[in-house]
């Protein structure tokens, strides 16, 4: 069973540092002070007899009194007039839309409690991202503004309306500029409202402003093809993908959709057809996408442009002026050549993407894609994406105009430039000169600590709080021809009003009710596109959630401007600017991670506690640097360093040693460091937006910065090494080459061995619930973790408790690193031991590959937890599940100790009813998000994955009521349902036709720690890498 490859979760595990070994010996990070009490004065203290008797007397009295308690009075309050569609106890589902994806909102007794994918969603086919799963919690955010604000004090809508109207009238008379700043709006109805607004106030102009900007791509498409659009990428059509720092499975444009596309060429079905795409990633910081790549080459930001030029040269056989070799990065140089060959071989089915926001870089990438005949196949310019349309120059212009005093009114809708504009200071100074400042932000006052507004809206004259998306009508159009509708799933909780309605009222529009406006708009133009009409059509739409126009035929494009010399020149100059001088200078890369993104959702505790997929850090951002580089500078993990930009902005962040990080670079995530997000998000991490630089007309994410040690130490709340297998092999992998020859290659499962059992076999006459997880499909995004939180009422514990290894997630995504050596010759454990002696392995740190493994209760048939429980709180069922009876548990924690997978979680606190957790879930309002079919666990009991037993039971009951057998697919567990990659399959093993039974029959299936003969119920499928025998 010994693997020939060493996997490790973190450097401390790899190095087996004494602290790490010591920590892992114990079940809990902090020892329970039992010995202290026993050996110290704790029990030896003499208790005077009288005190003892007093205590005894009081105890007996108190217990008797407590036992005398009468029946607790529970009120049961029925509806006065029950809405016809509501039956208490039965969930209703409404179609809606999040981020352009069609979704279903699950409501119970009129309150939304869960977001589920709409299986017909064109983009992700029912997959839902972590942030969409978490969005339902935003509705219950106790920090939402409860009333409109006028000049800093609570006001009424009438007062706000008359004030804004009179101001606007005066401004109109004055003739100065009015600006509407929004993050990209693709909603047809909102755009129509804005058009109406501009018509009413001709000096008004709409500015799309994206905190994380895609201006580079849009402008490059304008330059290359005369189409200023964001293309619709089609990773499902690509056999070879080369990405330069584009995190397309995570935060880049449309992660969920791209995940589905990408995995469709790498999942079990594709492998069975002997087909697997190849993915080569060049990047500086390790991104979610990079960690999934077959080949990942670390390149510095300064080398990225040069590498793209080299690739262009290698593909076309020409040499652009100013081309240079990557003299310091031989492996990158070599890989570029290999990538070029492979791309050329896959012409028409190849795709090159770059994450850069530089127009020149993107123009060159366009040229490469034209050369590879990608347009019309892997890139669709005819049905473009409308997710981002921001233009960096417009916001810059706005700041200049405001400074010049030529702007009299500015409106902010879903935009927060005072936080996320790179020149925030300049922006706020200029904003002060504007006469009328209106924000539609809903951040606001709460409880004792009263803060009004977010970073921008707190500077505004008027705050007209917008509805949460679950309270509003609306629509969106994220891809040309795909129109989704947003319908409210709950009445507005607070005295908020839809931003569009506010605008309609302020222009005295004939239709002021936004619902009517949206409906009219659809009836006029959009319904017809889906072949619908009238009231009946509208009602059909509300049931289906979207209309889809047939795609226009995607055609191929050729460049308008053939001469790329100027482009190459710009790239080279740009690269030269990033060259560092001296030891304290580094290339700083600023990126958005897939969890927090641009920071608009920073007040969401589910997202803050979701470990960032690669680093597994929660509740903060950090400075990621390469281990070797860090050691060279004398840093240790957790050292707080000060990063200073050339213009003097500085932040202090703890260091994270990130294997795979390019040498001499530091990566910092944006979206953290909010100051006015709310009690959850305030002060979490540091703001990295000011590190963006404006150059060549766009905002660029790379710059040169200086770093210095501050001497402070801050321990990261990182979950990666919390659950140790003590070096046992849990990952099995193979290469595509080997797989093609032998489908079971890499699978060292020992099913042929004779096994002996101490226990009788369980009978599972009806159902045997099992799960199959395809390691080759899982990208590690973490949506399942949030889905599980929402479905099973998993509590949030906060940063301090995560540091104590007390996170409660029932499902975690383990991330394993392993070394690549040339030709994929993998390292044996002994060799690693040898490597540890010297620092040679630090060189290998650049070249690591990553495997993600979702780990949850394995529902073992011979469960080690069951045999050690002294009170039989955890027992086996006749359906192959390991039940956990919380009310029987007395908290000995023996089960967690004996669990080889470390998936049991102990409730150290009453997280739902403890003032220490007020920020997260302990408030009356937020508790409304709880799933009423699942109990919340009390302090002192164990909990773990139940395989969503409430869903199994509900599925069975439905079948019984309908008097039919349970079908495969009737029961979907929460993690499976949300997965865009369909990596998780759940079902009944006793049904040979079920999807899961078929999946588990695959040659790739193995069971984790099979050698223990605990007979787990979850089968994993071997990870396959498309590495060539001789790799880069």
């Amino acid at each position, binding site marked *: 069973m010994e693997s020939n490859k060493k996997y490790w979760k973190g450097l401390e595990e790899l190095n087996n540092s004494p602290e790490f070994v010591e920590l892992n010996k114990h079940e809990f990070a902090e020892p329970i002070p039992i010995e202290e009490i026993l050996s110290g004065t704790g029990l030896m203290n003499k208790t005077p007899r009288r005190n003892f008797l007093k205590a005894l007397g009081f105890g007996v009295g108190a217990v008797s009194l407590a036992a005398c308690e009468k029946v607790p009075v529970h009120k049961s309050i029925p509806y006065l*007039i029950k809405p016809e569609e509501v039956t208490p106890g039965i969930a209703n589902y409404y179609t809606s839309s999040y981020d352009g994806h069609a979704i279903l909102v699950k409501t119970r007794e009129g309150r939304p409690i869960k977001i589920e994918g709409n299986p017909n969603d064109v983009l992700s086919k029912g997959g839902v991202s972590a942030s969409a799963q978490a969005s339902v919690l935003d509705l219950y955010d106790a920090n939402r503004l409860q009333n409109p604000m006028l000049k800093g004090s609570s006001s009424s809508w009438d007062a706000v309306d008359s004030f804004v109207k009179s101001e606007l009238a005066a401004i109109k008379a004055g003739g100065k500029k009015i600006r509407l700043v929004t993050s990209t709006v693709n909603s047809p109805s909102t755009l129509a409202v804005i058009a109406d607004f501009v018509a009413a106030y001709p000096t008004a102009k709409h500015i799309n402003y994206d905190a994380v900007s895609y201006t580079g791509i849009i402008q490059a498409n304008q330059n290359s093809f005369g189409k200023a659009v964001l293309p619709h990428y089609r990773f499902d059509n690509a056999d070879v993908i080369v990405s330069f720092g584009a995190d397309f499975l995570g935060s880049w444009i449309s992660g969920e959709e791209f995940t589905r596309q990408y995995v469709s060429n790498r999942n079990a079905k594709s492998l069975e057809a002997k087909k697997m795409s190849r993915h080569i990633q060049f990047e500086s910081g390790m991104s979610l996408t990079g960690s999934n790549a077959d080949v990942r080459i670390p390149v510095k930001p300064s080398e990225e442009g040069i590498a793209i030029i080299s690739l262009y040269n290698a593909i076309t056989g020409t040499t652009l002026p100013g081309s240079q070799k990557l003299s310091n990065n031989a492996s990158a140089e070599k890989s570029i050549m290999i990538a070029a060959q492979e791309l050329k071989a896959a012409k028409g089915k190849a795709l090159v993407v770059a994450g850069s926001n530089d127009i020149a870089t993107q123009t060159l990438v366009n040229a490469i894609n034209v050369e590879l005949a990608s347009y019309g196949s892997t890139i669709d310019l005819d049905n473009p994406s409308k997710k981002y349309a921001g233009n960096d120059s417009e916001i810059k212009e706005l700041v200049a105009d405001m400074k010049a005093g030529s702007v009299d009114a500015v409106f902010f809708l879903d935009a927060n430039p005072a936080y996320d504009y790179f020149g925030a200071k300049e922006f706020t100074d200029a904003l002060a000169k504007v006469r009328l400042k209106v924000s539609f932000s809903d951040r606001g006052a709460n409880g004792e600590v009263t803060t009004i507004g977010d970073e921008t809206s707190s500077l505004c004259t008027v705050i007209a709080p917008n509805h949460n998306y679950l309270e509003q009508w609306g629509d969106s159009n994220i891809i040309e021809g795909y129109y989704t509708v947003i319908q409210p799933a709950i009445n507005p909780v607070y005295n908020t009003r839809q931003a569009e309605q506010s605008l309609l009222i302020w222009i005295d529009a004939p239709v002021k009710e936004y619902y009517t406006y949206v409906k009219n708009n659809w009836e006029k133009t959009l319904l017809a596109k889906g072949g619908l009409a009238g009231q009946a059509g509208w009602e059909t739409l509300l049931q289906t959630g979207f209309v889809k126009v047939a795609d226009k035929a995607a055609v191929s494009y050729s460049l308008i401007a053939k001469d790329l010399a100027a482009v190459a020149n710009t790239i080279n100059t740009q690269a030269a600017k990033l060259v560092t001088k001296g030891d304290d200078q580094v290339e700083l890369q600023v990126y958005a991670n897939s969890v927090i993104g641009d920071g608009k959702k920073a007040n969401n505790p589910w997202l803050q506690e979701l470990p960032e997929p690669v680093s597994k850090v929660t509740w903060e951002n950090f400075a990621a640097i390469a281990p070797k580089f860090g050691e060279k500078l004398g840093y240790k993990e957790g050292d707080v360093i000060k990063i200073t930009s050339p213009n003097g902005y500085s932040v202090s962040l703890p260091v994270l040693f990130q294997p795979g990080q390019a040498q001499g670079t530091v990566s910092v995530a944006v979206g953290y460091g909010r100051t006015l997000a709310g009690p959850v998000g305030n002060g979490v991490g540091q703001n990295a937006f000011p590190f963006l630089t404006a150059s060549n007309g766009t905002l660029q994410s790379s710059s040169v910065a200086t770093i210095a040690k501050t001497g402070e130490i801050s321990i990261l709340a990182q979950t990666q090494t919390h659950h140790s297998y003590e070096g046992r092999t849990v990952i099995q992998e193979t290469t595509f080459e080997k797989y093609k020859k032998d489908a079971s290659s890499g699978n060292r499962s020992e099913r042929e061995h004779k096994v002996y059992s101490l226990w009788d076999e369980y009978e599972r006459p009806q159902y045997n619930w099992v799960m199959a997880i395809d390691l080759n499909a899982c990208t590690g995004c973490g949506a399942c973790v949030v889905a599980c939180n929402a479905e099973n009422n998993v509590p949030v514990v906060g940063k301090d408790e995560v540091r104590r290894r007390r996170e409660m997630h029932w499902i975690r995504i383990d991330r394993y690193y392993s070394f690549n050596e040339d030709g994929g010759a993998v390292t044996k454990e002994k060799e690693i031991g040898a490597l540890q002696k010297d620092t040679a392995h630090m060189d290998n740190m650049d070249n690591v590959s990553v495997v993600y493994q979702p780990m949850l209760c394995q529902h073992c048939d011979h469960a080690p937890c069951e045999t050690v429980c002294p009170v039989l709180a955890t027992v086996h069922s006749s359906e192959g599940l390991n039940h956990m009876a919380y009310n029987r548990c007395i908290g000995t924690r023996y089960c967690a100790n004996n669990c080889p997978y470390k998936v049991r979680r102990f409730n150290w606190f009453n997280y739902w009813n403890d003032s220490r957790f007020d920020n997260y879930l302990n408030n009356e309002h937020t508790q409304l998000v709880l799933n009423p079919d699942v109990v919340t666990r009390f302090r002192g009991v164990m909990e773990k994955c139940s395989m969503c*037993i409430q869903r199994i039971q509900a599925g069975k009951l439905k079948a019984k009521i309908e008097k039919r057998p349970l079908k495969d697919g009737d029961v979907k567990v929460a993690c499976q349902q949300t997965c865009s990659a369909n990596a998780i399959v759940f079902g009944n093993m006793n049904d040979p036709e079920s999807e899961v039974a078929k999946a588990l029959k695959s040659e790739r299936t193995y069971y984790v720690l099979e050698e223990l003969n605990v007979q787990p119920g979850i089968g994993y499928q071997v990870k396959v890498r498309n590495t060539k025998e001789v790799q880069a």
Partner: protein
Amino acid sequence: MSNISLILKQFSRSVLLIAGFAILGFSARAQGDAAKGEGIFKANCTACHKLDQKMTGPALGPVITADTDDKWLTKWIQNNKALIAAGDAKAVKVYNDNQQGNMTVFATLSDGDVANVLAYVRTEYKAMQEKAKAAPATAAAADSGPSNLVIFGLIAVIVIAFIVILLLNKVIGTLERLLLNKKGLAVEEVEVDDKAAARKAEFKKLLKNKKLVGFFIVCAVICGGSWQWVTLWNTNVHTGYQPVQPIKFPHDLHAGVMKIECQYCHAGAFKSKNATIPSLNVCMNCHKSVDRRMDASAPSTEIAKIYTALGYDPATTKYDSTKAKPVQWIRIHNLPDLAYFNHSQHTKVGGLKCQTCHGPVETMQEVYQYSPLTMKWCIQCHKRTEVNYKGNAYYDNMIQVHDKIKRGEKVTAAALGGIECGKCHY
């Protein structure tokens, strides 16, 4: 002349006769048969009309007494829609005056039936009014019933009288003793003392009997112990729990006498995990027209609580949602949160009767907790109850079911995993 006068006489007589007959006939028609009318009225009209009060339709007593155009009334009752459609001015006015509510068309009622109804309405309303005139006197009489003050006064007088009697008794006893002492009859008392002493000695003897004392101690321990055991065992078991509800809702009347199906009000019981307490609009399905017990003279105060909760004014039949305030019932059956219970599984799938767990609700004036709702109680039932699998295709594929049937065993809920922890605790 005589001829003429004769003719005149005859003519006038015949005219008179005809007129008399006509009047007789008319009056007979107008009067109709009130007794017959009552039946028709109760069968057809009471759903929307009352005689003295506005309901869905106007109060009929005053309207029909005031309106004597019986021909028109007959037409209206038989087919009001046709009248309105024909544009009859009066009909349209009535229609508009009553918020354009649609009255049912009674085409099946013959002219005679309608006449009977009208007669009933008029006579009954007249009787009601007369009663009402008499009523204030009786009402006043009823009002002068004993007030609280009087009752308390009476009680106080009785208590004081009792104390006085006791005191007097004591005084009499003392006086008697004094009298006896004077007569020198205290010797008897000594005899009494001797008897007491003898009894004491006997008792002391018994106390020294160790076996007897031991027996009593054992008895006491057994009694005390078992009492304690039962008390502790039943801690938090609330069988018989019968809280005072905000509305005294009589289940015995609704489910027992009226035989209303449980599900009519507890509509969730067959669909959902919650049986659901009915929302007040369900109550109003009937109580819009029923505001008192059949035999009661005044509207029920309990039913009025529904109206208050809904902000409903029975006089105007209008709802005022600003005055609405939900009824806060007190839960009787409290399962802890850690136990999941689904009604539909037991009723719809299992085919259990509500009474199996809730007891004879149809005889309960106020509902109390009938079953202990302990886990033991659940499990016992799961072990004993056969699964209702016949005719349910869900159970078809269950190998175990087939095996058991072959072996002739009972297929209980427990045999299908019904007593596993995870069935209820998650």
